[in-house]
């Protein structure tokens, strides 16, 4: 699905991502873990087109998409959520969802004037779709609330909802479970599993909660210092010595830094 080939990104002298190579298989929920500063979010940002990579390539289904701007990657089916949930705070929850699909007729100035019927039909379809998504995420009663007023966890759900408005090829989730209470985490986890199993979504998620990861992800990729350290099932990763070392450090290594 996605092939990342010796991707590097440096900021000044710091190599945030250093020749990372990995593949994400279609239909998988790939977990991406690693200590803070391992370059996970930077890797996400480079794939999603926020920054161009310093070196290396990204392929989406054999098509090179390296360094494309975010809105074009979106059209190719790449979606992502943010570590700190983002929303259009001055639009309602439903409007937030309806914002997502690209190329709506209402976006073309001429159509706004000359084809109002077509726009209203499209809007009706979108409203229905948004309502279905809200039902799925159990957010229906908040549909007309301004998204800025939602709690942190609800915003995370809304982010997940945004990916459901279109049929994405792959969804990158950046710490979707961070700062979310247990019950809501359960809802988020269940939603991800259902989307994966019923609708065939491919996910790649950054996560710190090992329990959450073990339940959802297969395979798990471990990053450290900008490169891929290990890859395997959750239980394999837990038993991997190199991984434990990367997380806990070995005195020696800390002294060198």
């Amino acid at each position, binding site marked *: 699905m996605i092939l990342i080939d010796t991707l590097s990104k440096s900021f000044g002298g710091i190599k945030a991502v250093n020749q990372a190579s990995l593949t994400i298989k279609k239909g998988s929920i790939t977990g991406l873990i690693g200590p803070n500063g391992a370059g996970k979010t930077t890797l996400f940002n480079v794939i*999603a087109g*926020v920054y161009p990579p310093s070196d290396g390539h990204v392929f989406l289904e054999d098509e090179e998409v390296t360094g494309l*701007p*975010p*809105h074009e990657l*979106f*059209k190719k089916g790449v*979606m*992502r959520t*943010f570590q700190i949930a*983002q*929303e*259009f*705070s*001055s*639009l309602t929850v439903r*409007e937030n969802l309806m*914002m*997502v*699909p*690209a*190329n*709506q*007729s*209402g*976006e*073309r*100035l001429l159509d*706004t004037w000359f084809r109002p019927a077509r*726009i209203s039909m499209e*809007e009706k379809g979108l409203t229905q779709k948004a309502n279905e998504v809200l039902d799925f995420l159990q957010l229906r009663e908040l549909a007309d609330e301004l998204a800025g007023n939602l709690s942190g966890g609800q915003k995370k759900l809304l982010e997940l909802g*945004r990916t459901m408005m279109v049929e994405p090829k792959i969804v990158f989730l950046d710490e979707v479970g961070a700062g979310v209470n247990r019950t809501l985490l359960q809802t988020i986890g269940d939603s991800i599993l259902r989307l994966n199993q019923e609708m065939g979504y491919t996910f790649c998620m950054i996560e710190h909660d090992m329990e959450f990861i073990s339940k959802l992800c297969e395979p798990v990729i471990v990053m450290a210092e900008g490169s891929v350290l290990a890859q395997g099932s959750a239980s394999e990763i837990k038993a991997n010595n190199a991984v434990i070392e990367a997380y806990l450090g070995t005195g020696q290594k800390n002294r060198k830094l």
Partner: protein
Amino acid sequence: MIDFLNALTLLANYIIVPGLAYGSQLALGALGVTMVYAVLRFSNFAHGELMSFGAMCTILCTWALQSFGISLTILPTALLAIPAAALITVLYCIIINYFVYEHYREKKIDTNTYFIVSIGVLFFTAGLIRLVIGPKDQNFSDGVRFILKARDFKAMTGLNEGLAIKTTQGMTVVVTLILVAFVFWFLNRTRTGKSMRAYSDNEDLALLSGINPKKVILITWIITGILATVAGALYGLDKIYKPFTFMYLVLPVFASAILGGVGNPVGAVVGGYIIAFSELIFTFAYKKFLFYILPESFSPDGLVQLLSTDYKIAVSFLILVIVLLIKPTGIFSGKTI
């Protein structure tokens, strides 16, 4: 009772009517500044010159229409010329955006640099205007000058004080109402308007939702160009078109936008009227007004003017400073549209 009515008429004639007209012009100007700020995140100091450019195009189009013998009889011919002038101004905005702002946007330059760039655009536009139409004043208002003449008003009511309403003043208010209503409808009801609001609210998320930034920026410039043309043309019609005044007009326009909360369109409109009325209230000579409402023994000798009209600009400056000290986000806490 008669004295009281006289006093009211005096206020209406010197403060309320001109204030509404001037306030409308400022509101349109501030709305343009606010749109650019909300979407592109910089203070566009070239906006005053853009208004001047729009007014200049209106004048040229008016002359063209007049040379073909077309006129609106009662209303100023300029009203007919505004759409064509707006089109030219929009094109100018798009060209400037393409060659200047887009260049810097791609380099992801910070907003301070943007603001300096806009000052460069200001001087370029100012120079272009001097080249095309020259530095002299132009009067391009035609049609019937007054909706209501002071003399007729006096004859009608039998009061000492007259109330005059210029055609341009009436037109300014009506056109502003229509345009502001249109902008609000556009931002709140159309999908394109919502994309603009979304982009202004959260740029990163908008990009990742497939909103094309170039398109949003293009539409922002189209709206800004239209607003600037109408504001400039109405200001020129109401007073007289002087290429040099627009450099100073930027100040009250910015004061309006900041007072209302930069980036907030409602704020821009409200701010425009507040600034216009403050300028007039502070510089109005109350001598006659007090003469009407106070008993004779109290009537003042001086002009009872808080500030000379020369200090008009200082009023907006003062308000600007006070707002920035007390509530820098403005009345409506702007930032997004």
